[in-house]
């Protein structure tokens, strides 16, 4: 099933609602990772509402495009989008991180419909996507792989093992996305472990590289469309984003990588979301 296309205004409205769900879900859970969930909202909304071919009623559909959240700690973002899409009831969001929940602290394929990979250990998702992309080519299927990684995640050696491998096999059915929000857990990425020049690195590994403003839907959608057209090369979209986007005191704050505001604070933040 191909999702009906949305206007950019509608996508913006959905993004706002997604931010609200992320914050409320995290406040209820009392722990988790707000910063890297809020930074990538528009990218995921674009994927699930416009770019990807998928069917919430049939999560196991073999022809579906697959989204792998390699930075698994952004689970609240993935869950908020999947719930709005109808993969499971929105009510379930309240159970995040609680015992016996279908929504684990980090994504769990066996417990949650729509989740494509057990992630949480950074650095692994792109390699798994390569496997699925190779299988897709073997089976003459035209499904595509989308993989979201953190910029801190670029520090894992396995990312670059995968980068070499995907270009060796000319996997034009992979679109990787780097959420370039500039912050990891201990602090600023360029202080903990400089990863620049990032775009040149991916180019040197023979990838097609597109840089976008991670909050500009026109740029985001154009980039995904371009990636679909490129032949014989995987594409990486480096999305320039802001950790904690949308909540003033969380923006650019390493503290809110893994700290959750209480319910009262969230109630007042949610009213101010744009």
């Amino acid at each position, binding site marked *: 099933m191909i999702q009906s296309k949305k206007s950019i205004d509608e996508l913006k409205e959905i993004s706002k609602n997604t931010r609200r769900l992320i914050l409320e879900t995290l406040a209820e*859970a009392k722990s988790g990772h707000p910063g890297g969930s809020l930074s990538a909202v528009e990218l995921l909304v674009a994927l699930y509402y416009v770019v990807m071919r998928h069917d919430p009623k049939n999560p196991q559909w073999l022809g579906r495009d697959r989204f792998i959240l390699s930075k*698994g700690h952004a689970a609240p973002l993935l869950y908020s989008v999947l719930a709005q899409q109808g993969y499971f009831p929105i009510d379930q969001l309240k159970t995040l991180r*609680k015992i016996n929940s279908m929504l*684990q*602290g*980090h994504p769990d394929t066996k417990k949650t419909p729509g989740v494509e990979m057990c992630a949480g250990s950074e650095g692994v998702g792109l390699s798994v996507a390569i496997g699925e992309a190779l299988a897709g080519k073997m089976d003459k299927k035209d499904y595509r792989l989308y993989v979201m990684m953190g910029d801190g995640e670029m*520090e894992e050696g396995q990312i670059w093992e995968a980068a070499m491998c995907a270009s060796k096999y000319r996997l034009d059915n992979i679109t990787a996305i780097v959420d370039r929000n500039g912050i990891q*857990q*201990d602090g600023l990425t360029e202080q903990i472990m400089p990863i620049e020049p990032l775009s040149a690195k991916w180019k040197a590994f023979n990838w097609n590289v597109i840089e976008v403003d991670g909050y500009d839907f026109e740029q985001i959608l154009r980039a995904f469309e371009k990636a679909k057209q490129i032949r014989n090369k995987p594409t990486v979209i480096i999305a320039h984003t802001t950790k904690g986007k949308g909540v003033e005191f969380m923006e650019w704050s390493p503290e809110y990588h893994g700290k959750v505001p209480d319910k009262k604070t969230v109630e007042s933040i949610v009213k101010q979301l744009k």
Partner: protein
Amino acid sequence: MLSVDEMGHILEKPKMSSMRDAYGETLARLGEEIKELVVVGADTTGSIKTSIFGEKFPERFFNVGIAEQNLVSVAAGLAMAGKVAFASTYAVFAPGKCVDQMRNAIAYPEVNMKLVASHAGISVGPDGASHQELEDLATMRAIPNMKVVVPSDPTSTARLVEILARTRGPFYMRIARPNCPIIYTPEQATKNINLGKVTVLREGSDASILACGLLVYEALLAAKKLASEDSLSVAVYDMHTIKPLDADAVVKTAKATGAVVTAEEHNIMGGLGGAVAEVLSERYPVMMRRVGTMDTFGESGEQAELMVKYGLTANNIANRVLELRGANQR
């Protein structure tokens, strides 16, 4: 042995603090005395508290980013060049992601490197199974030359970190994330916690509970309950050194009680329970029960809920003791 009286008070209203604070503070203290001490981190230094050392000795502190294989290998290199190298991140990632490096670059050449991994076990809580390391004792124990230690509280953490820093060779130490009861005073820890020797917390004649990590406290509670409700005299040993295991002490208590229960925040396969079973099956077979996770992954939840759901409690340990005594009488 610490007398039961000496221990009694801690079972009523224990003081709580965390092993990772003890770890970071001990490193910072040792850094003054041991000039060769260096510490390597992997983007989790704030959470594991090695940042305390980093602030004091920035020139001896390295953050390699989210790169665990690099983390332990860089520490290996530092050690090979004469440093006393500590490396730390969450247990699920190191040793989880770097068993090869721990084997070939560290244990095989017997490098003076210490991997201290935090957030081990199911007590990590809401992060869920992906972050709950339950296999590290098995993987690290099976590597030749690698010594493996598991402190049971913040004070024994401090004591064992000091022992690691002053003992040459490769070590793996695992600590837990949450605040936990303080079992030992610093003096008790210095006197009673020694590498390769069990620490006897209670002697007993009816059964032996051999525990490590957070389960030591649960074992003490279990023994107390069994004493008051079932009039059983149950030994409790803190098995902080998983390798080299104090085999003689294990055999001795098995001979004295004929019933051995192990307890650990780890898969029942390959950890403390496995190590004890190996020794007893060869030297003095007795019936055993192993308390641990039952070859299953954990899940998200609060620490206390998970400990109950996965059977890592004083109650479960006590029930296992009773079950074993029942089986022995049949």
